[in-house]
Structure formats: C-alpha cells, structure tokens
C-alpha cells in the first residue's frame, strides 16, 4: 500500500473524547452491533432442528408451557413460554433446520 492510498483510507476513530486518524481492521468492520434483547422474541440459542411444535398464532399460553422442542447436538431441548401471553407469530415448522439466533416465535 502506498502512503497516498493509506491517507485516503484513514478514518476518524473515537477513543473517549478524542478522534484519531487510523485504519480499521476487517474484523473490526465486520463486528456485530449489539442490540438489546427483546423478551417477546423467542430465538434459537443453538442451531438445530424443530422436532415438536405445540402452539399456533393467536393461542393463549401460560408461563412454563412447552412451546417447541429444538433438537441440537443430539439433545432434545425444551423451549418453554417465558411468561403468560399470546402467540403473535410462529416462524418455524416441524422438521425445519434453523441457525442460531433464528426468530422462532413472537409473543405479545
């Protein structure tokens, strides 16, 4: 990289109250922005397969009732209702493979 090229790539990088001219790394650019967790969103904490689904949109569900079973790493994990509420949407089907952090069920 020539010096001239570098100069044009320098960005303002804030560390506390001061901004420094510097280059960014690929890893820094690709870092994930943090978002506040939403308790109404039931997301997969591990990638796996839906092997049982017990709820439908509009259904009233009590805290602790089984929403679905997510099989991952040869373990059948219970996903329970975190609090009393109504199912707003179901985004998975039985037999479906889902990645980590997939929004499986929305509650309202």
């Amino acid at each position: 990289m020539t010096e001239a090229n570098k100069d044009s790539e320098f960005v303002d990088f804030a560390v506390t109250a001061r901004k420094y001219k510097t280059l960014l790394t690929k890893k820094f650019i690709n870092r994930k922005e943090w978002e506040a967790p939403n308790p109404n969103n039931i997301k997969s904490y591990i990638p796996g397969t839906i092997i049982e689904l017990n709820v439908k949109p509009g259904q009233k569900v009590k805290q602790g009732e089984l929403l679905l079973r997510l099989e991952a790493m040869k373990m059948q994990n219970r996903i329970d209702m975190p609090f009393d509420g109504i199912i707003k949407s179901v985004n998975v089907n039985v037999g479906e493979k889902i990645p980590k952090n997939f929004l499986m069920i929305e509650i309202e």
Partner: protein
Amino acid sequence: MSLQKDILELREKKAIYEKGGGDTAIEKQMAMGKLTARQRILALLDEDSFQEYDLFVEHEERNFGMDKKTLHGDGVITGIGTMFGEPVCIYAQDFTVMGGSLGLKHARKITKIMDHALKMKVPCIGINDSGGARIQEGIGALAGYGEIFYRNTLASGVIPQISVILGPCAGGAVYSPALTDFVFVVENISKMFITGPSVIESVLGEVISQEELGGARIHAEITGNAHFYAQSEFDCFDQIKKLISLLPASNTKRAAKIEPKVPSLKKQIGQIIPQDPKKPYDVRDVIRAVVDDSDFFEVQELFAPNIVIGFARLNGDTVGFVANQPLYLAGVLDCDSSDKAARFIRFCDSFNIPLVTLEDMPGYLPGVDQEHAGVIRHGAKVLYAYSEATVPKVTVILRKAYGGGYIAMNSRHLGADFVFALPSAEIAVMGPEGAANIIFAKEIKEAADPDAMRAAKVQEYIDKFANPFVAAAKGYIDAVIEPNETRNLLIHTLSVSKDKYDYRPEKKHGIPPF
C-alpha cells in the same frame, strides 16, 4: 558375500518404505501443489543432515481389514537433523500413506521424537498434513492425540515448538499446533478446523468452503491461530529458518549472538512520529530505525495489527519487540491485541529473550462487543505477562501513554527495568479533552462561552500534563531522551542487564487469566 546381500536388501527395503504411499500417491500429492513429507524435511534441514528413525514401525490394528494393510512408516516420518548446524527434532505426516491419518503407532513415533527433543533440549518441528484420526483404529487414535498434547504441554516453555500446517489438519489434530509456540500456514494448502464444512452443512445448513472456514488467511488474520503466513511452501521454510536462527535451542540457553550491524533504514525517529497525537504512522518504521540492519521479523503480522510483535537484533542479540501500532485502530488494546501481546511476552520470558516495548496508545477499545467479549480478562493477560516476566524489560514511550494502557504497556509499576520517554510523550490518566471535560466541568458549564472555555482548559491540561515531565518528576520514567539516542540507550540497557536476576515467589505455577 552374505553381508553384502543383507545390505543390498536393506537398501531396497528402505527405498520402498521411503516412498511412503508409492509413486501414484506421490503424483497425486504433487498434483495438489504440495511437496511430499520427505521433500519438506529435506528442504528445511541442512543438507545431508537428516537421520530418520522408526522407518519400519508398523501399526497393530487387526480390524476392518487393516491386518492386510502395510502402511510405510505408519504415515509419518520422524528423525533428527540440523539447522544452521544445530540439532532439531522433526516429524512430517505423510499424506500419501492412508491420507496421513493418525493411528496409535503413528502417534507413538511422534511422541518418541518429542520425548527425545525434550530430553536433548532441542527445538521440535512438526509438519502436519493429515486427514485426521485413523477411524479404523478407533480409540487408539484418540489415545495417540492425547499423548501428543500431553508432551506439547510438558515441552511448553522448555524447548521451542513449531507447527507447520501443510495440508488438512482437522478435528483433534488442531490442538497439537494450538499448544505449540508458532504455527506456520501456507496459502491454498493449509486447512484447520474442529468441524469441517460437510459437518457444518449437515448440522447447521451453513454452506462454507474449506478455505473460507479455516484456510491460511483466516487463521493468519481472523482467528490468530497462525503466526506466520506464506504464499508457498518454500517461502514458509524460509520463514521457519529465519525464526530458528533467532531463538535459543531451549530455555536454559540464549539465542546465538551474531555480528552487530547498524540500521540500514536512514529515517530519523523524530521524523517518523508526527507531533500531532491524533496522526498515525507505522510503528514498524520506528523499530526498523533502531534494530540491527533494520531487520524486523514480525510475528502475527495480519492478526490484531493494532499491536506489533516480533523479533529483531540489537547489537547482535535477539530481542522481542512489543509495540502499539497507531496505524490500526489508533493502536488501542482490545481482546485480540491483548492475547497476541501476552502470549508473545510469555514466550520471550520463557526463552531468555529481553523485551523492548514501544508505547503509543490512547487506551482500551470502547464498545459493547469488546466488553461482552471479555476485554477485562483478555486485557488482564497483558498485565500478568509483563509482571511475571523476569527477562530484561525496557519501555520507550513514544507518544501517548494514557490511563490503563500506560500501566499495561510494561510500566515501571509492573516491574519494567528501564522506562524512557521521548519529549513527545504524554503520560496522563486520559487524553486532555476527556480530562478537561471532567475536571473543569463546572467552569465550562458556567462560562459565557463554554466552547472557548473548554478549549482553554484543554490547552491548560495539555500544557500541565500532556508531557513526560510529570512522570519524570516522580521517577516513574528514568530519562527523557532525544529520539536519536534510542538505539544506543536500548543497547546500553540490554548490556547492563545481561545477568539480570529477578526474584519471584516460589509456586507450582501461576493462574493467568486464560
């Protein structure tokens, strides 16, 4: 007459065994753009120095038709040779023999040469090119891996251990390299992962190529598992030779001294470092301006480039450099750069290599991702490594030394033997803007023109504290030096601390924040 016949037979047998998997398999290996295990060993060692052991070792597996299979050398070549005339133990997995798969006897050949290296106190180089565990041998293969890991751990900090990844290295196999001191990878040839693309796809449905998942570049730049990245096997061997030339054979020795040379880079440090603390520069130029022949051998060049680590020579002796790099992320400490620096410091301390720290950093990287990734425990590794190290430790503060970063970067308080500062150094609890905002919050808020008042207070703080003299007045730094004095002072400090002895309380081992 019969003796002659025996010798001829031995030669014939050796010739067959030395071909590993045979001509067809060798052609396949070459077609993949790879050298054979034997070619690799011969390319790395001094000419005619290789003495092979255990060529005729055979596996003992009797299931799955293995009793009818002869695996030459059991898929690994082991032995001793020399590099620059000094002995090294070496092994190379032979992909042409059943994919270099690791069975118990294969592993026992490796552990035998490792035991040898540890007893003889010589470096051990492992060349990895293996499809993984030999499934037919079942738990025997697992036992083999475990026995290798155990020896990697025992040898850690006693002899330099080098891993060269020249093919696939998957599953359990990756943990031997991970336990060794330096991992070398080559573009398009090296592949390292715990679970490969096919498993990931079948379990998670994520489609990724071997190269994207665990190719050379990924490990050199993203994961930090690799320390040296090369475009070809021969470039890689040159890097290994260079590294070996800079290291002692064991923790009871010192690296060989060579003829001192003056730096060839004719730039002045004062011209490399901009006056404005917000402007970047390449700290490697500062290193090159002070070291012999301007020859700096960088370690983990692509990973966490906001800190620079590597070896060079001062007055002919090997020295380890740790330097903040303002060129990337302003030179902040973060999780990755802390890990990178801490491990290097511990390597140098184990192998009697003095440490020179060049400091110019604004602090730790702020952010939710950093905090949640554990920048506290990662950052603590740097404090631990510097405090624990008993080799000569010298720091030169080039420019900014703020807050926790000032403490972490081998400060007097962590046991530095010598701390120098250039006149451009700013040693303070934080940058002037931040400090002025806090200390003079009331004055700024109540001023008729808050911005003007803030600017005045920032300037007041800069004048009073953004310099090396406050720290010098307290004796935290030993001298404020002119940039051009740096090389001679470093050489002076290392020569006077040649016989340094530093006391540490007796213990089984410490508990660093892994």
